């Protein structure tokens, strides 16, 4: 295995640079086999890997006595056993003309999020179609996701052409079919190639059996396709990753230039705050630079001491990003639990994390017809156009103009799963200078006048746990102390403000969101507002908590065991739910998520309602909400 003794000079650096592409399409259209073929024909399968491949093919192969090239990329045990691709695999190969990173993505709808993972880093897509089956739903779904993610060049690889006798009619029929769909997707180029991944026709070498086809082979195409995504030509954007402060004499902002370029002396602005300064140094471990371009990892030093932190976006003053707290975006949902408008998620955009919620779902998209469909939620793998609101303004560019600053992910705040991927289409409201009007009568003035601080007392617990009884007692007691109060509960809210809402999960979320907003207004007005709602989901309780200031939300968990609630059943609801006459009843066929960080837990099992109310008042005194 040693070389022939003399040292060889490495080949010329590839002229076209690196190409990142993905293979996608429906199950069994031959994606993994195609990549296996590319690697095999490029002589990139090493001897020990070939031995392992032959062994695996005998054990798991689907190609009779031949080696099964798909097993080169299906690296997980479960994948080899089931003969499917579950997760994206990254493979590396190079030819004298170019180096490649290829993402082999799964075809099953179930694993769409893994396909999107592969597509988000790619510059071109090879979409496979089985010549016998033609264009399928997954072909369309993947094509649509590729276009949403901004991939501009696609190859339609009509695979298994050997199984339709290399028929040009069949090929042209499929191509026509595909163009009919894909025209609306706005790809810059679509190149159609008939191939047989299993036998190698038109993959790396021209096929004798497909003489009627005059276009490039797949590899020829990949070696020449233009992958320049023009990030260098976009306006300068620099998300601050890390504040570099080794000592009092140095303060730099480390990060990677997302787009454009910057030169010493340029005037820079912190997008969100609007503060400006001049760039005085571009520091790297290899010495200072005069300028930096998209993709460079550098540390910037400004002339003035500005308040800049991780999450800030630096731009040149002559080309600023938008700064908004309301925007429209396409969202691909990737969690088992559906997306619920109103629920608070953690949004990551650039280097910034900010709480955000979908304020409305305008429509979801049928991937087969691209039609807009009215919907209340997005389920796993669905795509919709949403309006979103963030807790504080964020700086961005529309995704179509800049992939780096227009993309975001949504994170489930309870299990930290990556739940959604978003691409901003446009901002809805300029937040710049829309700082809330400062009214002359402010919170402090109201606190002084009232003699107590405002707060939300949030009573949560099962139906029949005693929430309302306790809340009523607390309100009476507070009133007698001259405290301004108001009580919100299901009875006075469901009949008016929220009479359009039912008891589905989506409606429950909206119910609590509206209650939270009303409660916030009361807090603003200086009141102590008591809210008594089952509010079974942690996410919604946290959402309300975040509407008000630190210490203004007091969560009181009225902890009564379900057996006891069923026994009490003051309104006869449990009996009806158990008889199946009420659907989605908390504790029966809908879950209750126990609070993890309630300010106060009241176990009514060994406490009277009066004693419980007294404990609430003690808690409010301890928190200096009342005197």
């Amino acid at each position, binding site marked *: 295995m*040693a070389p022939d003794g003399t040292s060889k000079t490495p080949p010329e650096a590839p002229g076209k640079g690196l190409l990142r592409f993905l293979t996608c399409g429906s199950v069994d259209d031959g994606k993994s086999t195609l990549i296996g073929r590319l690697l095999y024909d490029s002589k990139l399968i090493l001897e020990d890997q070939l031995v392992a491949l032959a062994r695996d093919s005998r054990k798991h192969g689907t190609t009779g006595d031949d080696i099964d090239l798909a097993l080169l990329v299906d690296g997980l045990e479960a994948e*080899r056993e089931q003969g499917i691709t579950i997760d994206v695999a990254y493979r590396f190969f190079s030819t004298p003309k170019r180096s490649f990173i290829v993402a082999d993505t799964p075809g099953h709808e179930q694993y769409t999020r893994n396909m999107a993972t592969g597509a988000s*880093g790619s510059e071109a897509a090879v979409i496979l179609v089985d010549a016998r089956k033609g264009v399928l739903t997954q072909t369309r779904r993947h094509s649509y996701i590729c276009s949403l993610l901004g991939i501009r060049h696609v190859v339609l690889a009509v695979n298994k052409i050997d199984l339709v006798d290399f028929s040009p009619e069949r090929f042209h029929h499929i191509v026509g079919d595909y163009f009919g769909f894909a025209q609306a997707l706005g790809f810059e180029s679509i190149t159609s190639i008939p191939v047989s991944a299993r036998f190698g026709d038109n993959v790396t070498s021209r096929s004798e059996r497909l003489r009627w086809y005059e276009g490039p082979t797949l590899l020829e195409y990949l070696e020449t396709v233009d992958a320049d995504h023009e990030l260098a030509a976009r306006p300068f954007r620099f998300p601050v990753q890390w504040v570099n402060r080794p000592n009092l004499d140095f303060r730099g902002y480390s990060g990677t230039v997302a787009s454009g370029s910057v030169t010493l002396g340029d005037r820079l602005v912190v997008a969100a705050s609007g503060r400006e300064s001049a760039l005085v140094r571009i520091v790297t471990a290899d010495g200072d630079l005069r300028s930096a371009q998209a993709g*460079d990892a550098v540390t910037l030093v400004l002339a003035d001491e500005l308040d800049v932190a991780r999450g800030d976006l630096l731009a040149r003053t002559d080309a600023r990003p938008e700064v908004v707290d309301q925007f429209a975006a396409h969202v691909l949902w990737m969690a088992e639990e559906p997306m619920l408008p109103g629920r608070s998620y953690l949004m*990551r955009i650039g280097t910034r994390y900010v709480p955000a919620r979908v304020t409305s779902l305008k429509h979801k998209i049928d991937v087969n017809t691209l039609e807009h469909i009215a919907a209340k939620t997005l389920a796993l793998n669905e795509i919709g156009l949403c309006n979103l609101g963030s807790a504080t303004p964020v700086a961005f560019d529309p995704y179509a103009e800049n992939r780096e600053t227009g993309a975001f*992910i949504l994170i489930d705040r309870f299990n930290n799963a*990556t739940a959604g991927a978003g691409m901003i289409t446009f901002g809805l409201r300029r937040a710049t200078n829309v700082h809330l009007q400062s009214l002359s009568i402010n919170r402090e003035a109201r606190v002084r006048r009232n003699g107590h601080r405002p707060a939300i007392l949030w009573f949560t617990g099962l139906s029949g746990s005693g929430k309302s009884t306790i809340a009523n007692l607390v309100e009476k007691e507070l009133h007698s102390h001259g405290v301004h109060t108001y009580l919100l509960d299901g009875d006075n809210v469901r009949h008016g403000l929220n009479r359009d809402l039912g008891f589905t999960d989506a409606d429950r979320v909206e119910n609590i969101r509206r209650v939270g907003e009303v409660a916030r207004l009361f807090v603003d007005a200086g009141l102590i507002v008591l809210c008594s709602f089952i509010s079974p989901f942690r996410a919604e309780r946290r959402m309300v908590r975040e509407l008000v200031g630190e210490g203004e939300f007091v969560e009181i968990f009225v902890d009564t065991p379900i057996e006891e609630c069923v026994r009490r059943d003051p309104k006869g609801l449990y009996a009806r739910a158990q008889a199946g006459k009420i659907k989605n009843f908390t504790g029966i066929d809908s879950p209750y998520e126990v609070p993890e960080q309630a300010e106060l837990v009241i176990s009514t099992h060994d406490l009277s309602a009066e004693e419980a109310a007294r404990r609430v008042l003690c808690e409010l005194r301890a928190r200096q909400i009342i005197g």
Partner: protein
Amino acid sequence: MLSRHLQRLEAESIEIMREVAAEFANPVMLYSIGKDSGVMLHMALKAFYPSKPPFPLLHIDTGWKFRDMIRHRDMIAERYGVRLLVYTNPEGLARGINPITSGSQLHTQVMKTEALKQALDKWGFDAAFGGARRDEEKSRAKERIFSFRSKGHVWDPRNQRPELWRLYNTRIGKGETIRVFPLSNWTELDVWQYTQAEDIPVVPLYFAAPRPVVLRDGLLIVRDDERLPLEPGERTQMRTVRFRSLGCYPLSAAVESTAATLEEIVAEMFAARTSERSGRVIDADEAASMEKKKREGYF
């Protein structure tokens, strides 16, 4: 001067390291002394300049590393002034677990995988950098750059977090950790070309030299000390060999080679017809071996 390709890879790795430093309470960099660790450490020193890397190095010492590796490790820690933690599984040591009589599987399980988990727990690290690359092995080709581990350091390859763009999800709950792979998109050739271009010190075992070798099961095992017993009929012979991948010495096979400089190693790469892990005894233990070890917590 780095090629554009290497510049791009370096910038991507630096971005990943800064991300970890900014988001995690207590990160650590696994340092296995090999060429990938060398590249990773070199980039960490560049990433935070003029600051020092805001995390220590951790070496899991099985007690069976080549003596040259340990010398190199201590030299590097001193030269760069980085904090180096060394950990050995005390129970494994007490039980006398070793790669020869315990077998490679048990040895790896106890002295590497378990030891690593113990060390992460002992110091409460919430993120750990590893030098693994996707081109090394097919289950590694499936791994995310920010790879989530549930309590007990378990990897669930069938249910990984989607990882779109470079918007890494760095959020974890109590007791959960993240393994981070800054070299995910590097190939073995990239590593050597970068090592050469940046003049990064590497363990001398990577360079060809005459060494005492035992031929066992078709593999060339270098006898680093007397603890490796010779089986009947075996004898050591001097061969000019080098290593492509370094681990515990009885489990790492050498290759015959005359490449004695970085330049010659790079040239050899272009002609290579076997993969670098072909000399790793532990990979051949069973099919899907790497995935199994990774699920249990191996890097």
